[in-house]
C-alpha cells in the first residue's frame, strides 16, 4: 500500500513516497523516507518486501558512491538505472530474489535533461514521463494523463502532484501518513517542505 510516484517535468524530476511503515494492521512509523541518494543528481525511491527494500537500496547506493569516488565522475542517470536493472535481473535468477520495485529520478548534467525510470523486480526498465508502482497508479494516472504536459515547470508539476495526493487521500482505504516529496534538478536533490 506504499505510495511511490514520480513526475518528470521540463527541468526536473519530482519524486514522492508515502511516510507510513505498516505491518499487518498496524502503522509502525509515520515519517519513513523510502528513498536513497545514489549520487548528487540521482535519487532512487523504492517499495516492496520490507527489509529487501532498504537492503537493496543501500547496496546500490554504496556501489554507485564507490564508482563516483573511484572515477571522480558521476554516472549518468541512464547508466545508474541500467546498473540497477541489471542487479535486479541478476537477483531474480537466484534462489531468493530481491522483491523490490524502484523509481529512479535523475538529472543528466551532460545532456542537461531530467530523466525518470521505472524498474520492477523482474528487471523491466522503462523511461517514462510519470510513473508509479503498486496501487497509487490506479488512483492517479487519470489525473496525470489529463493534466500532464512535458514542458511543465517544476511549480506546475508540484501542483499536479498535489492533486494526485489529494485524490489518494480521498480514495485510498488506508492512511498512508502523507508523503515526502523530493526534487532532482541541475542543482542536485532537495526536499519540498510543504506541498
Amino acid at each position, binding site marked *: 500500500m506504499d505510495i511511490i510516484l514520480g513526475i518528470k517535468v521540463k527541468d526536473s524530476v519530482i519524486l514522492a513516497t508515502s511516510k507510513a511503515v505498516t505491518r499487518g494492521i498496524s502503522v509502525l512509523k509515520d515519517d519513513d523516507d523510502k528513498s536513497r541518494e545514489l549520487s548528487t543528481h540521482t535519487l532512487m525511491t523504492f517499495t516492496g518486501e520490507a527489509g529487501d527494500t532498504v537492503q537493496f537500496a543501500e547496496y546500490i547506493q554504496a556501489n554507485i558512491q564507490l564508482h563516483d569516488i573511484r*572515477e571522480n*565522475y558521476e*554516472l*549518468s542517470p*541512464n*547508466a545508474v538505472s*541500467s*546498473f540497477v536493472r*541489471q542487479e535486479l535481473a541478476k537477483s531474480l535468477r537466484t534462489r531468493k530474489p530481491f522483491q523490490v520495485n524502484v523509481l529512479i529520478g535523475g538529472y543528466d548534467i*551532460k545532456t542537461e535533461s531530467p530523466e525518470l525510470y521505472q524498474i520492477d523486480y523482474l528487471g523491466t526498465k522503462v523511461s517514462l514521463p510519470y510513473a508509479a508502482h503498486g496501487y497509487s497508479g490506479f488512483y492517479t494516472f487519470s489525473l496525470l494523463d489529463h493534466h500532464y504536459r512535458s514542458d511543465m515547470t517544476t511549480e506546475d508539476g508540484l501542483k499536479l502532484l498535489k492533486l494526485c495526493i489529494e485524490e489518494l487521500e480521498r480514495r485510498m482505504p488506508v492512511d498512508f501518513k502523507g508523503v515526502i516529496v523530493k526534487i532532482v534538478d541541475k542543482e542536485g536533490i532537495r526536499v519540498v517542505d510543504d506541498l
Partner: protein
Amino acid sequence: MGSRRYDSRTTIFSPEGRLYQVEYALESISHAGTAIGIMAEDGIVLAAERKVTSTLLEQDTSTEKLYKLNDNITVAVAGLTADAEILINTARVFAQNYLQTYNEDIPVEVLVRKLSDIKQGYTQHGGLRPFGVSFIYAGYDERLGYQLFTSNPSGNYTGWKAISVGANTSAAQTLLQMEFKDDIKLEGAIELALKTLSKTTDSSALTYDRVEFATIKKGENNKVYQKIYKPEEIKQLLSKAGITKKSEDGEDTAMN
C-alpha cells in the same frame, strides 16, 4: 651476475628494490617493432612497424600490431603478440560487460586501468612472469574526448599527446617532440606518424607491407569510428607522404 638470484622469479625485489623480471620484460619490448600514437584535435593516429620475416608470409589477411577493443578504442601492441592477445581478449569481454551493465560505452581510462591492474597482478603474485607487452591505447569517450594512453609490463599507465613504444623509441620521441603541435589536425598527424616511423625504422626503407595503420575520428552525425587501413590504402598514404619515393632515393645514395 649479482642479479641472478633475483631475476628468476617475478615476485621478488632485488636489494635495490627493483623487479628484474619487469625490467627484462621492458627490455624485450625495446626490441619489438615500433608503434606510434599521435593525438590530433580531431582524431588519433596509430601506426606500427611490423617485422617481415619472409616474403612468403600472407600479409593481407590480418593485423598483428593493431586491434580494436570496442567501438571507441583501438590498441597498438609492442612486444609478445601471444601475450597481447590474452589481454586483448580480456579487454574486449570487459568492455562489452561494461556496455551491458551501464548501457554506455566504457570510458577509455577505465579499460586502460583494468588491463594495467591485470598486468600489475602478474608482477606481484607467485609463479608467473609479467606480460611482455606494452600498449598504446587510442580512444574516445564522452567525458574527456580523444585520449591516448600507454601501459607497460609493470602495470603503470600514462596519458600522452604523442608517444612511441618499442624499438628506437627515444629517437622517435625526439622527433615527435620537435614536430608535434597542440593544434595539429588529423591529416598532419598521419603524415607525422609515417614520417617518424620511416625515419626511425631499422630496415632500409619503410614499405607498405611493414606498416600497420589506424585512425579514430568522428564521422557523420558525430559518431566515432575507427579505421584500420588495408595494405592498398597504406601504399597510398606512404606515397602521399612522400615516403615511398624518398626511400628509393635513399637506396640510390646508399648504393653510390
